[in-house]
């Protein structure tokens, strides 16, 4: 990971100065937005396939169980192997992802036992594994940063502070041993605790210990003041690296296996018949979903991450019928949500509306006295923004949106009204019932419509030039006649019937 970061920084240094990189990444907003966008992109890419396969809630399963994997791996690392607890360690990510995939397998087994249904198996397995994880966290991992809050919402706002340092010049690593001139030595009572005596008592034995011995990386050494000359340092947030790798993997997976994914998603039987292995594709997808869920854990916690998997693809699904376009739109929507999400957490909705003003409005209406500065969770705000974009897509989508559906239905019902009236006139004109059926004042009775509605439809038909009113009777014009024949033959053709006219 360090190598990758270094390579990336060297690439960046070709374009911008070192100080600019540091200043840019030291801003919580920049780092949080980058991480949010990366999670959104990888989540949306994979989530598209989950959504189309009807497995959206599998991401819920995985994200819940990944927590248990992380906690167990974390505790193993710190307590058993004595390593430093670090949630971005590759070992931890790997172990936790396996746990995620393992649970998908387990749920499947549970449900194949035939004793409970799939939804029940899922609904039972996640809470259980999540519950065990929470008990472990609160019992054993109290001192570490794995607390319940981090589990819920992550720490995307603090991601900028958790960095790896990369040194490019003046790189001196400092090792301080007891002989070093800057070693800080202190006397400590060796046997006070076991004998229960105070250091002033007789019999207390002392040892000299060194409080600052150890080796220091250039960045640490500079910070501690052991160096005369400032090393050339670039600080790179660890979470960006992790999420970047996840995004690259997801993108690579989707690009390389695009054809296989498409085929197994839409027609798994055909895929099997053609010699592909839908099962293998399925598990590969699950592994990647687990990896992304683990990688995102630090930033957005283990519950909110499912929003990044489900909502952007769902919005894209309402906007397009083409898989390739969905795969473009989903990441864009997710990234857009992540981008505006930071602003929302700081009180600006879509960069226009001030949340503080809304609260002020609520205060003035209700007489409450709520705090008017809105300062909230970044990851939750990102999810809310993604949801807002989804809602916009739902309302305004050109084909499937609420508004376009409403307009389409209205125009369909108008056309139906027109055709009914035209057909009525066509059937009755030049017959002997013509005088009862086609009198304009009583025409609405034959359709069981109200007189005003009849008036509207008739006015429209007259304006279109289909119908004329002669001596208080409705009759078809030549255009109207053609129109009737046109839709009649279209209808007969649609029902495979011969035209008798």
């Amino acid at each position, binding site marked *: 990971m360090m190598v990758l970061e270094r390579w990336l920084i060297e690439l960046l240094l070709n374009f911008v100065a070192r100080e600019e990189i540091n200043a840019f990444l030291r801003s919580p907003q920049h780092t949080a937005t980058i991480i949010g966008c990366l999670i959104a992109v990888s989540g949306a890419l994979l989530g598209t396939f989950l959504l189309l396969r009807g497995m959206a809630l599998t991401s819920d399963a995985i994200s819940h169980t990944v927590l248990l994997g992380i906690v167990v791996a974390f505790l193993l690392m710190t307590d058993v192997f004595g390593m430093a607890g670090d949630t971005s360690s590759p070992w931890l990510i790997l172990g936790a992802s396996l746990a995620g995939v393992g649970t998908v397998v387990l749920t499947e087994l549970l449900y194949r*036992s035939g004793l409970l249904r799939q939804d029940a198996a899922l609904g039972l397995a996640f809470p259980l594994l999540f519950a065990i994880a929470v008990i472990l966290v609160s019992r054993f991992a109290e001192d570490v940063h794995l607390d319940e809050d981090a589990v819920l919402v992550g720490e995307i706002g603090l991601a900028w502070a958790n960095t790896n340092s990369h040194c490019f010049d003046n790189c001196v690593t400092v090792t301080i041993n007891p002989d070093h001139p800057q070693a800080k030595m202190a006397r400590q009572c060796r046997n006070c605790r076991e004998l229960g005596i105070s250091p002033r008592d007789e019999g207390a034995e002392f040892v000299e210990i060194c409080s600052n011995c150890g080796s220091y990386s250039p960045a640490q050494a500079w910070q501690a003041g052991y160096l005369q000359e400032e090393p050339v340092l670039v600080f790179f947030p660890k979470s960006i690296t992790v999420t970047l790798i996840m995004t690259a993997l997801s993108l690579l997976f989707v690009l390389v296996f695009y054809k296989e994914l498409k085929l197994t998603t839409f027609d798994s039987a055909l895929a099997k018949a053609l010699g592909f292995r839908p099962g293998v594709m399925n598990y590969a997808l699950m592994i990647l979903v687990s990896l992304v869920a683990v990688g995102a854990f630090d930033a957005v916690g283990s519950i909110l991450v499912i929003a990044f998997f489900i909502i952007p693809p769902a919005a894209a699904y309402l906007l397009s019928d083409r898989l390739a376009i969905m795969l473009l739109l989903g990441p864009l929507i997710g990234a857009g949500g992540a981008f505006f999400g930071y602003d929302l957490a700081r009180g600006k909705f879509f960069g226009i509306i001030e949340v503080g003003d809304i609260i002020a409005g609520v205060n003035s209406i209700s007489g409450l006295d709520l705090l008017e500065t809105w300062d909230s969770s970044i990851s939750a705000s990102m999810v809310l923004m993604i949801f807002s974009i989804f809602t916009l897509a739902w309302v305004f989508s050109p084909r499937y949106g609420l508004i376009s559906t409403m307009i389409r239905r209205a125009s369909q019902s108008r056309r139906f009204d027109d055709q009914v009236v035209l057909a009525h006139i066509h059937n009755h004109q030049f017959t002997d019932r013509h005088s009862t059926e086609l009198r304009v004042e009583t025409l609405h009775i034959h359709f069981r419509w109200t007189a005003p509605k009849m008036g509207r439809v008739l006015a429209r038909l007259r304006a279109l030039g289909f119908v004329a009113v002669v001596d208080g009777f409705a009759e078809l014009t030549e255009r109207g006649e053609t129109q009737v024949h046109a839709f009649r033959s279209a209808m007969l053709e649609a029902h495979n019937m011969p035209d008798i006219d």
Partner: protein
Amino acid sequence: MKLKSMSAEDKRVWLAIAGIVVLGICFLPIGQWLFGIRYTYTVRVVALGGSILGVISGALGCFAVLRRESLMGDALSHAALPGVAVAFLLAGRDLGVLLIGAGIASWIALRFISALLGTTRLKQDAAMGIVLASWFAGGIALLAYIQSIPDASQAGLDRFIFGQAAAIIESDVLLISGVGAAVLLTLALFWKEFKLVTFDMGFAGANGFQVGLINTLLSTLIVIAIVLGLQLAGVILMVGMLIAPGIAARQWTQKLNHMVILAAVFGAFAGGVGAVISAIDADIPTGPMIIVVAFSLVLASITLAPGRGLLWSSWRRRLDSRRFARQNALRDLYRYVLSHGSPGTPVPDAFIRGIGDRSAALGLAQLLSAGLVELTGDSWRLTDTGIEAARRDAHSLQLWDLYRLYADDLDLPLLGEDRHLDIRDVLPADAIGQLEAMTEQRPN
């Protein structure tokens, strides 16, 4: 009720109830001895509250399980969080108000999911995922905002996330009992309607029931059960509290009324015991503890339940495979001796074992101990009783063949064809007589 007059079904249910009550009673001294629980006033209140909540969510959860809406419970419980926060902001920290807020938020989520399903082509899982994540994010964002308010005593809202039994006080228990009684009463009043829409919605609609209305009422009751349970189990884990008792109860019975009663008892156990264990130490969050207890009940039921459980079915499979092995060995021997002359012909051991290896050995051992065969040197010989048994079996197979051919013509009762059974045990005597008449018509 006399034990003899009860069906096997009833016995199972009473067995489960008795088991759980004994477990509950045993837990009290064991808990005291093992964990050092002191049954102070607080712990008693907490246990009572937990049990009552368990009864309500267990009973209502059955319907969620049977309607395949377990995950809907998950979505609705996550969705309650913003309601709690908004209610707190608008009206303060009174429990009743917070719960009403939670209920409204869940209910809006429910309608939102229906709207998404009704107006878009999204499937149910996607719609639930969208609502679950967004509502939860809204709740988290509001809680973070509340936390940023200086000197607002927001302490206590966190308990809705993971549940906190220790926070339950006597007035809460009264509130829970009151609402819970109303919920259970409604359940009893609309029992027939709920049962009907749960099992056959189309039939209910065709018979003129207001399916939409009944569904909404049932969903609303489930929402109320979820909301009441929140302070015990928390929004994330409430789904486990809701469905685990129902799933466990389902293993013991096929009847809805039994299932609901049993689920209520299981729920009471999980809620009570879980709450007491977590009250030992402030570090143990209640919700997770209750889920672990409830899941243990599910695990026990899946393994132990008579008739359906894993132990039971593996035992039955074992018995079946023994029976099949014996029968197959007998048939193989008989087929061999018929094709090699008289029924007394010895059958080489290598031949018979070559056919069915392990299961042949199992079958032969049973035949030997029943005295149907004898082993001389390395060949097997059918004894007289053995020959008799083999003939009866062959005759039964012949009758099965005839049954397959003529069951329709003779208008015989409909059976699943199981050739490992003696047909004379499964068909009534007059039907056997008709089949026997057919054998005489077609000598073979």
